[in-house]
């Protein structure tokens, strides 16, 4: 590191100039979602790293950190890993997706149906 090196960890998180829109109506929810999506990303990173380790172990029996850093998936491996990520995202975003689907139907509260079934 040279003398004029910067604090890259702090600088990586620099805020972009420009007022951030209010999406969710309360700042706590905004922050919780920011953390949640970042953590979701990190879980995805861990999954991919584990997949790399497994593939390298399958291929070579023993591996080094350099092997992991230098790993370049071939087309089939890249496809399988991208499907893994896609499946992972679909799972964590399930609530949003199902809320989207709910917009397509008119549904009564289950309590109403329950009352209905009790007497009919």
């Amino acid at each position, binding site marked *: 590191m040279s003398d004029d090196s910067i604090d890259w960890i702090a600088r*990586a998180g620099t805020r972009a100039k420009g007022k951030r829109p209010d999406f969710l109506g309360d700042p706590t929810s905004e922050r919780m979602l920011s953390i949640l999506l970042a953590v979701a990303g990190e879980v995805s990173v861990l999954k991919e790293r584990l997949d790399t380790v497994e593939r390298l172990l399958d291929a070579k029996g023993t591996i080094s950190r350099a092997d992991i850093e230098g*790993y370049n998936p071939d087309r089939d491996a890249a496809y399988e890993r991208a499907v893994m990520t896609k499946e992972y995202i679909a799972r964590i975003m399930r609530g949003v997706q199902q809320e989207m689907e709910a917009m397509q139907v008119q549904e009564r509260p289950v309590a109403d149906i329950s009352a209905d079934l009790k007497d009919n």
Partner: protein
Amino acid sequence: MKQDVPPPYTAVARHAVFPAPRHDEAARYNFLTGLNKYLSGTIGAGNKLAYDTRVLPAFRAEHGRDPRDRFEIRHAMNRDPWHRFWSACKRNSMEMRQQNGRSITLRQIDELAGKVRQFNEGRNTLELDPAVKVPRYQDAVDIHCMPGCYHGEERPGDMSAGANYDSGLFATTGGGLGALSDGGGQALVEWIRKERPGWAPKRILDLGCTVGHNIVPLALAFPEAEVIAIDTAAPVLRYGHARAQALGATNLRFIQMDAEHMGRFADGHFDWVQTTMYLHELSGKALPAIIREGVRVLAPGGLMFHLEQPQYTDDMPLYEQFIRDWDAFNNNEPFWSAMHAMDLKQIMADAGLPLDCQFVTGVRAVVDRDIFPQAPSGEQEDHGRAAVWNAYGAWKPKA
């Protein structure tokens, strides 16, 4: 069934000054690429559903009429919980992309700066001019939530803004622009070869070149041409010049210059004046002024060509205009909305390119389809980042 998935970040081309990602940094981009694709593709349709099933009916009930413009739709949609949550996720994805790109770039800033210096020092193809001011339209907010915008420096002489920009292009476009994220520039080469086979422009000018990713393919396709790329931001020019040199585009000169003031170039100096996804980052005053300057430096018989997302016209449904406007208000693109409603044809006509010399054509990114996906269009399109454009062009009258 074969799943529609993006290529891995490891398929990105690592030219000599590219900020090399570690395993986990590439994986982080892979997540973001997948998340973007999910948001714009898999559940992007939820916005239209919310609009059709409840936002529009509520608007009609309240106002007794349909929305008159995309702004009314935006205000109505911004009250819808599903759209708000979708937007919040998308905004976070943009912010996370910046954090990851800056992390990759800044942790290796000394090493990258050294490599860039090797390509820049002592070469007369990079001309920086500290007297060039950052235009107001570039300084109002950090465009597309890129901290520091194109001109921010972590320290004097910095190039990391360019490196960060280059680093993230592949991820945010899902590989749709190819390994070097230059599918736009490749499309220009393919288009001109079909349009004017054998035409060999002697001088080409690219306005607002950033890291030069879209002009390098033209410089390589016309090695005899003198190609000049200008931008107001020194950090992207430093990086872009090194990048171009690393890729062998030695006939490409990068100059720090404001496109509103190109007095250094004589009238009719260039055979081709090009902009690629640039006009939407200007302002209502700067855009016509820059077009005028561009037309002035364009030779009779020369080509002016602007690659942009489609303009909003009366034919475009208001809902589509609204969703295409998402980046304007949620991803710091403050001129995006106004620019797409401008009458570009009339502006070009007023600048000296009569309507009968003009044309509009559709352009798709040219990439290795064997590896990289066709960019989705229509409902699945990720509008701010789509690899499909409209080109607004004109051949300047000869006399």
